[in-house]
């Protein structure tokens, strides 16, 4: 069996749960000796996607499944919230519209998903039965 872990978080404790997922991933990455840059990149991606789902997705339960393959790390997030494809928007041309605006005109929106796309090597979404399933891949 490949190294990995699965962790579930429930309704009352979603925000605390996101923290637990982050801590669990950090511990796993440390134990597996994953490079710091990969560990931090995946931590950012997890934070962005969990925060989105918790704030807007109306999920009661989220499961995070992490598997370490010989040359890639795979992270699956499954939630029972309303159907939502975080990557449904076309990938914006780089730089993101607005990223070149001066400070006074700058606002933040969609930044998190933009970060996830850029920091991961592959991002996928599918609606499977009544679950949202997001799969992130980071090459090692």
């Amino acid at each position, binding site marked *: 069996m490949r190294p990995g872990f699965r962790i579930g978080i429930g309704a009352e404790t979603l925000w605390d749960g996101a923290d637990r997922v982050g801590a669990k991933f950090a511990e796993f990455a440390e134990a597996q000796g994953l490079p710091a840059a990969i560990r931090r990149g995946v931590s950012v991606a997890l*934070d962005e996607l969990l925060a989105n789902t918790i704030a807007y997705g109306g999920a009661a339960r989220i499961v995070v499944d992490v598997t370490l393959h010989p040359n890639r790390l795979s992270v699956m997030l499954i939630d029972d919230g309303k159907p939502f494809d975080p990557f449904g928007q076309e990938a914006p041309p780089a730089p993101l519209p607005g990223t070149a605006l001066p400070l006074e005109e700058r606002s*933040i929106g969609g930044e998190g998903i933009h*970060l996830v796309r850029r920091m991961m090597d592959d991002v996928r979404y599918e609606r499977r039965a009544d679950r949202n399933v997001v799969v992130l891949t980071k090459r090692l």
Partner: protein
Amino acid sequence: MEITTRTEQDVTVLVLVGHLDSNTSPEAQQALDAILAGGGRKVVIDFRALDYISSAGLRVLLGTAKRLSQERGALRLFGLNETVREVFEISGFATILTVVDTEANALRGL
């Protein structure tokens, strides 16, 4: 996340340790609000011990930078690690916020 502040003449130096993400950004927001409420207008943030930042953290920085700019103050950051720098570059923050390499350079001319 661990946050400490100290003052160097009229500059407040905020040291962030850990992660600046959706869980910890309210804490950082409070610390920055307290500095502004106390009349601080020149703020330097020490990122050397900050492991990573997510968009929630960027939002806190942007809000603070805007308020300081309106008050004719200044915000400078130094000591960003590789991942934090990458997040800044992807989001365009590297060009709208003042990022320098060392504390000495951050304090110079403030």
